[in-house]
């Protein structure tokens, strides 16, 4: 695609539909995304690393691709080809379930998903509420201001995942320190990251060994003692699962809790809607925070981003565009979440939005394994915070680490 295409809106205003695009004000970014997806289902672009990739803009086309088994990740896993992306993927991620295909993917996923199923997560909600309130108690006891990242948003997901994996309470401080090394928000020097990750690996290996001998009701026990020969997993298979849960479960969730709180503080009218009936509105508010992403937070937003790519195993036509055998394809969540065909009035941040087919947690075989847990944690974190501290407000500018791929909020100063 040429980078200079334009499109006309119903008001005959010319909108630049080149993609990717440099940072523009959020409303302009939305307008561009709407025009791009109206004009074409996808754009072929060259990534900073790994060559060319098709980037899908239309919500329905993205769902078609994500649920089509002819798109796989094997060539990335084996190293046959580089992953076309904005940054290099760490090798340990390529050995995880995220880069597996059926049938091995199915086996791994089946073993883990029961432990993070909607049912299990519902049973965890009460303890999440209790823990969120303990954190708020501690913040209030210290004074009338806090950095919400450290004092709240990171602590809650770590506690939930420790419970899920079966990390004993006395080991939690160590576990939190090591796990923080995997967090973008921690911003740790490289040698410290390596040392912490090594200690985390050693700790988990020992814990898996213990759970094999002394099983309890937790995920590591489930994995270490999978029921029959077909399902049995080696430590080499269990470790990457634990690691990806840590990486995905802490960092992304903490990040979304922060961006959710910040989106609400920056949109007082929507915060007022939430405060009218926090428990009732929180579920749709969380979906809207996931859909809206960076739009309600930043002064400018650049166009470009992506979920992990796939490779076509044969020529496949998606929404009129052929993706040739061997070509890579990915979904830009910001783009498909602002496709006006799928999402009415996509530029509006609406915490009561009912139809919200966002793809931030992906779709299909590789949809976010922890989605029910992430949703519950976000709902609880936001509900409890605003119920307890309805006058919460910003006490300074939020700090965002733009050098990091996930652009995490590293400092979120608040007062009440």
């Amino acid at each position, binding site marked *: 695609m040429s980078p200079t295409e334009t499109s006309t809106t119903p008001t005959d205003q010319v909108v630049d539909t080149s993609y990717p695009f440099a940072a523009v004000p959020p409303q302009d970014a939305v307008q561009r995304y709407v025009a791009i997806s109206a004009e074409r289902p996808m754009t072929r672009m060259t990534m900073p690393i790994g060559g060319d990739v098709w980037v899908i803009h239309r919500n329905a086309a993205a769902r078609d691709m994500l649920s089509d088994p002819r798109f796989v990740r094997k060539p990335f896993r084996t190293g046959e080809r580089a992953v076309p992306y904005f940054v290099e993927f760490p090798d340990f991620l390529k050995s995880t379930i995220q880069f597996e295909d059926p049938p091995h993917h199915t086996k791994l*996923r*089946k073993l883990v998903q029961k432990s993070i199923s909607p049912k299990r997560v519902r049973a965890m909600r009460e303890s999440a509420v209790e823990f969120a309130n303990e954190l708020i108690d501690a913040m209030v006891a210290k004074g009338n201001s806090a950095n919400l990242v450290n004092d709240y948003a990171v602590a809650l997901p770590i506690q939930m995942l420790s419970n899920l994996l079966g990390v004993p309470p006395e080991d939690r401080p160590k576990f939190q320190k090591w796990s923080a090394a995997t967090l973008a928000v921690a911003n740790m020097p490289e040698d410290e990251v390596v040392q912490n990750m090594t200690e985390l690996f050693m700790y988990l290996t020992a814990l898996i060994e213990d759970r094999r001998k002394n099983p309890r009701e937790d995920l590591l026990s489930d994995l270490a003692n999978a029921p029959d020969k077909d399902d049995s997993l080696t430590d080499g298979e269990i470790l990457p699962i634990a690691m990806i849960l840590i990486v995905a479960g802490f960092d992304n969730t903490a990040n979304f809790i922060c961006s959710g709180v910040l989106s609400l503080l920056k949109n007082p009218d929507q915060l007022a809607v939430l405060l009218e009936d926090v428990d009732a509105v929180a579920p749709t508010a969380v979906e809207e925070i996931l859909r809206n992403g960076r739009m309600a937070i930043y002064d400018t937003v650049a166009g470009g981003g992506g979920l992990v790519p796939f490779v076509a195993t044969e020529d496949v036509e998606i929404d009129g565009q052929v993706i040739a055998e061997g070509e890579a394809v990915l979904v830009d969540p910001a783009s498909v979440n602002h496709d006006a065909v799928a999402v009415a009035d996509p530029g509006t941040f609406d915490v009561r939005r009912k139809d919200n087919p966002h793809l931030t947690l992906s779709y299909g075989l590789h949809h976010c394994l922890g989605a029910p847990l992430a949703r519950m944690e976000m709902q609880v974190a936001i509900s409890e915070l605003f119920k307890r501290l309805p006058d919460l407000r910003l006490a300074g500018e939020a700090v965002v680490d733009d050098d990091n791929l996930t652009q995490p909020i590293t400092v979120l100063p608040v007062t009440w």
Partner: protein
Amino acid sequence: MPKVFYVQPDGTERVIDGVAGDSVMSTAVRNGVAGIVGQCGGSLSCATCHVYLAAEDQQHFDAPSEDEDDMLDCTASDREDSSRLSCQLILSEGVDLHVTIPDEQA
């Protein structure tokens, strides 16, 4: 055209004209029926398209497979005898279906 009657937990009903060969889940998702998420796209790995199938419609389907049965144990709302994952309920010509959506899905 087979029709699907979707009843929300509050009793409101939506009727969608479906296409034979499509599932109750994909028909719901395509038409924006609230309460059916179907995040895994029908690959039996999310338990977010849980529905209660009307008694008179159960004759049209085989009992849940082992994989569906496993996932039905993972649903957010309680499993009942009529519980099915709607991605496994495929529409047929001349057969209308009636499903009730549970309180919680994910």
